[in-house]
């Protein structure tokens, strides 16, 4: 009993254990890693990936994937900057409008994928390219500088020793955990991703649920975009480049299944922190950006392989639980 519960913990919280081990390795590599300041830095870095990641997690639980979040982030930074620098709109209103625009982008992605019955990977890749282009068009291809100092608060501010983005990350994580664990809506996401047809035959409008997941993903990418805007302090049409890959790696490491129907907010958030730790630690160890790319890709590949293996192992277990019967065999005659 004791041994099996330890095994269960290891399996359940692999991501936490990996975090601790990785932390130890980095501390040996460079003692500067293990300082309070550095921790805050890591958390700050992970918060934007985290908020976008929670959104992508909704989509993945419902059985899809969203690669367009990076482009949404780019659009939002550019939109907010254009609002206050070029269009004479107050930055706060600009932020609200941008987040609404991001939500619409998410809805559009979901609508196209779910209603059009296209592969989520391909559909969101197409939308990513479209929105990436839109970000350039909005700002004429050039970064937008000269934004008001106070508008950077959500990306750079602190309350006490805690950075504002970290607080936003925690709040959003908590809300997401509540929605997914406690509400019927949350249960619907899991059901739709676990078995769409069975969920539909139980009276769930899985089409609507899946589109809603993409919409939430758009909304959270929008908020992540606001955080990004504050951090870089300008409107950058390339701000969100590669973000989707980091987000995807993070949530898959955090145990969100590519096959849908599975995922926990806490673990997914740990995955996001882990990715930031990795970047931070490797940089402190003077490992070049290019090598880091190779490592990140390898970790992503490893995480996906592990996920696929676990999924197959589970399926097999399920198949074996069922006594094979000649009746099924014969009924097709």
């Amino acid at each position, binding site marked *: 009993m004791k041994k099996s519960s330890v095994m269960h913990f290891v399996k359940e919280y692999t991501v936490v254990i990996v975090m601790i081990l990785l932390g130890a390795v980095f501390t040996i590599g460079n003692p500067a890693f293990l300082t309070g300041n550095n921790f805050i830095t890591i958390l700050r870095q992970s918060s934007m990936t985290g908020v976008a990641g929670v959104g992508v997690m909704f989509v993945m639980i419902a059985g899809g994937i969203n690669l367009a979040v990076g482009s949404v982030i780019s659009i939002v930074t550019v939109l907010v900057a254009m609002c206050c620098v070029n269009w004479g709109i107050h930055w706060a209103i600009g932020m609200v409008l941008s987040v609404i625009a991001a939500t619409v982008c998410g809805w559009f992605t979901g609508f196209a994928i779910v209603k059009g019955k296209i592969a989520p990977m391909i559909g969101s890749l197409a939308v990513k390219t479209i929105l990436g282009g839109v970000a350039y068009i909005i700002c004429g291809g050039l970064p937008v500088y000269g934004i008001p100092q106070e508008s950077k608060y959500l990306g750079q501010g602190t309350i006490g020793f805690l950075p504002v983005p970290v607080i936003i990350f925690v709040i959003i994580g908590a809300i997401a955990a509540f929605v997914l664990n*406690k*509400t*019927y*809506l949350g*249960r*619907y996401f*899991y*059901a739709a991703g*676990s*078995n769409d*047809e*069975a*969920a*539909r*035959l*139980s*009276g*769930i*409008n899985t089409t609507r649920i899946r589109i809603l997941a993409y919409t939430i993903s758009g909304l959270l990418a929008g908020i992540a975009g606001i955080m990004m805007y504050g951090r870089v302090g300008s409107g950058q049409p390339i701000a969100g480049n590669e973000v989707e890959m980091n987000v995807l790696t993070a949530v898959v490491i955090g145990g969100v299944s590519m096959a849908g*129907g*599975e995922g926990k907010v806490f673990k997914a958030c740990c995955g996001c922190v882990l990715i930031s730790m990795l970047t931070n630690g490797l940089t402190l160890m003077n490992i070049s950006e290019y090598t880091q790319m190779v490592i990140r890709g390898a970790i992503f590949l490893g995480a996906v392989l592990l996920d696929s293996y676990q999924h197959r192992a*589970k399926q097999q*277990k*399920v198949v074996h*639980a*069922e*006594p*094979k*019967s*000649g*009746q*099924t*065999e*014969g*009924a*097709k*005659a």
Partner: protein
Amino acid sequence: MADNILTLKNITKRYPGVVALNDVSIEVRRGEVLALIGENGAGKSTMIKTITGAIRPDEGTISFEGKDYSALDPALTRDLGIAAIYQEFTLAPTLTVAENIFMGQRINSGPVRDTRLLFEKAQQVLDRFGVDINPRSLVRDLTVAYKQLVEIAKAIAKNAKLIIMDEPTAPLTDDEVDILMKIVHELKAEGISIIFISHRLDELYRVADRVTVMRDGEVIITKEVNELSKADLIYYMVGRELKESFPSRHIAYGDVALEVKDLTGSGVAPVSFSVRRGEIVGLAGLVGAGRTELARLIFGADPKDGGEIFVDGKKVEIRSPRDAVDHGIGYVSEDRKQSGVLLRMPISKNITLPILKRISHLGVVDTKKEAEVVTKQIDDMRIRTPSAEQLAGNLSGGNQQKVVLGKWLASDSKILILDEPTRGIDVGAKQEIYKLINQLAEEGMAIIVISSEMEEVLGLTDRMLILYEGHFMAELKKEDYSQERVLQYASGEQSV
């Protein structure tokens, strides 16, 4: 002996709990058409799989052209010249007819394919049995009938000596059936043997030389087709004793709970019928008769082309399963694992899925209420499990089915559609499911049962609607039940 191309001797194949083939012997003569008939589950598929090498028999010998084998395998059967044509084609739709005919074969030496030769050779094959298809057309542009002919041409191009056709006429129109019949005769004239499986008895007289009737994994009789009447065929197909005993129930009918008027769609021609409270109505028919399609139309799982549905006498609009659930209809699907239970979710969450919104306050699930509902259903349905949090995928088939039933009871369904409720469930659990179904009917539920097992439909239901290829054939009352009658109508015969 010399004129037999294939002989199966004393073949037995067992699956856990079921003997699929029991000491079966058949022989196929050179250049003959042997029809193979039998009910759902008679063992035809297992027989075919033995001949094509898809499965290994446990006992017996297979001889092909005088050579004995204990089992065949797919590569060997291909070399021997055995080909099978199933209802699902194995054609590459984006390639040409000629390319499909010679798929996997080299027609010229050297690295470059000689396309002119390819089309020429394909044309030769097609001409041989007088089929008018352009070898340059793409397979995806052909009708089902022509695709089937391409499959046959493919078999011939591989020098097949024995071709198995599994219900080849099912998807064809009458004219197309005529073409197929003509081609079968041509093949026969060339000395090719054919095993022809069909549910349509009429056709057998047109095409077959001899007929083999199977039932419950055994060959009942093999005889010249002209020596047997349709009535004989049906007699041999059903002549089994009813082994399973069905629990009795107290019958008390209430008002009409469900009425369907001219419902049509998914290949089902307009059907009208009604079910009363406390009544169990069977939907009988062979595989492909449109029973599941009809069930899914009622439940809103597939769009209907027309017709009306009344629940408790009131006309209702059912456009999605949600609408059906809201009107008190529950559907237990035939494919439990694909569309019945959520295998990766626990029992509890499976059971409350349709009523989750109802047991939530301000969107938050009332876990106390949920636990009550789940406990009640686990008790009522006698689901054997260590805990309500057990994943449904870890349960046995019978217990999974009880979870699905519990789901619909928890949602206060008044009308229950059970599609193959005991498929893949062992004998003991079957009895339990039957008792539960009876109990639900006694409690006033209106129940529709679809089953491919003749015994089940006869034993469980009070009244039966028989479908044949999407058409309503007949309605039988309990007192008129007989296996012969059911099979007669299910085979598309009005009278025998």
